[in-house]
């Protein structure tokens, strides 16, 4: 095994993504059209719970769509190449970091378009953005591992959704609760407990993903 530095691997992920701009553009169009469809369907949302729920459902589908690509494009030949050249821990961490950056950006984009088309209801903006950031990092940790598992199994996208939805559920519930607090404009002291849990979930998810990926690595 030839050891390649972590930064090199992350750079590789970006290079691959930007070389094929069609996937990024596809995600962009996906976000805009989903938000636009929901804006057309709902016209105006007055209930903050509905507003929040709709946002998280849209975001959930976007993240699953995005992250399913991260391992599904690793073909058999590429897999052998990766196995020879890279350290498994570096490999999964680079995937997670790349997904984190991508998803944090996408979550902000989604939030921007959603607020524009459907109307914003958030009263405590700082907390909402913080919640978005930590949720997207935790999502990317879970989904990177799930994508790796799905790609080893049978390479289909439906398996990815089946595997990810149940394990994402605790995360989504915490995020929904925290973001609801932010929408209602509650004080920081009320929601601090949930923010702490979200951060701790981040650590748990990423630690587990890096530990367990070693065993998926060998074929």
């Amino acid at each position, binding site marked *: 095994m030839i050891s390649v530095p972590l930064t090199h691997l992350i750079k590789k992920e970006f290079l691959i993504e930007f070389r094929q701009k069609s996937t990024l553009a596809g995600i962009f169009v996906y976000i805009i059209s989903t938000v636009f469809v929901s804006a057309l369907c709902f016209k105006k949302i007055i209930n903050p719970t509905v507003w929040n729920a709709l946002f998280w459902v849209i975001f959930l589908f976007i993240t699953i769509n995005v992250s399913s690509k991260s391992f599904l494009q690793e073909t058999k030949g590429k897999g052998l190449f990766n196995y020879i050249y890279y350290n498994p821990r570096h490999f999964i961490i680079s995937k997670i970091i790349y997904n984190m950056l991508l998803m944090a950006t996408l979550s902000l984009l989604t939030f921007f378009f959603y607020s524009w088309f459907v109307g914003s209801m958030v009263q405590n903006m700082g907390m909402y953005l913080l919640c978005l950031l930590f949720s997207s990092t935790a999502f990317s940790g*879970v989904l990177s*591992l799930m994508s790796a*598992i799905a790609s*080893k*199994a*049978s390479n289909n996208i439906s*398996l990815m959704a*089946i*595997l990810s*939805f*149940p*394990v994402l*559920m*605790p995360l989504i*519930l*915490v995020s929904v609760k925290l973001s609801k607090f932010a929408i209602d404009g509650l004080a920081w002291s009320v929601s601090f*407990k*949930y923010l702490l*849990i979200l951060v701790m*979930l981040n650590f*748990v998810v990423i630690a*587990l*993903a890096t530990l*367990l990926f070693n*065993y*998926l690595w*060998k*074929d």
Partner: protein
Amino acid sequence: MIKWWKILGALLILYTIVWGLQNSVPRLDILNETIRNVYYHVPIWFAMLFQMGVSVWFAIKQLSKNDLKSDILSDQAAQVGLFFSIPGLLTGCMWAKFTWGTWWTFEDPKLNGVAIAVLIYLAYFILRSSIIDELKRARIAAVYNIFAFVMMNVFIMILPRLTDSLHPGNGGNAKFAQYDMDSNLRTVFYPAVIGWILMSLWILDIKYRMTLLKQKQHED
């Protein structure tokens, strides 16, 4: 040769069924006689969680030792655990109908947790069935099993403690400990927990041996 713990498990469950319906229980509003459900509903959930724990234990063993017997045990324990969720749900639904007035509610974090736990293990079996190669299946299923177990525990152990639950003992509802859980209830409750866990181990033992025999038949 029949092992002593199997007999003990059967006897304990028999004892909880007979004595659980006869001993005196605290008289409480709303709960009334349904308090006896604590002898059946709660131990069955404990047995389910125990089996999920066994499943993860063998998943870890599979990853470290890489032997297929651990994988079979891990798979079968998850099946037994999922099986135990059915009587757990049924007794819970019946109890909820008489105390909360509804079969199911989305308000309660424990109920949601159980629904997710069932979904997680269904996903686990789907994952297993989608991989044909035995060694590969064992490894990938073990990875998913460990990850899913941790997330499930976050869901059913940590999150319910943050919010109010409708279950007795949570969020201002009547606790059993307040109403002498120590004396009368405990004489049946603890044996019931041990009894159901032993029973689940017995089922696991039978299922494991059946799978081994089936494999042997397959090879011949």
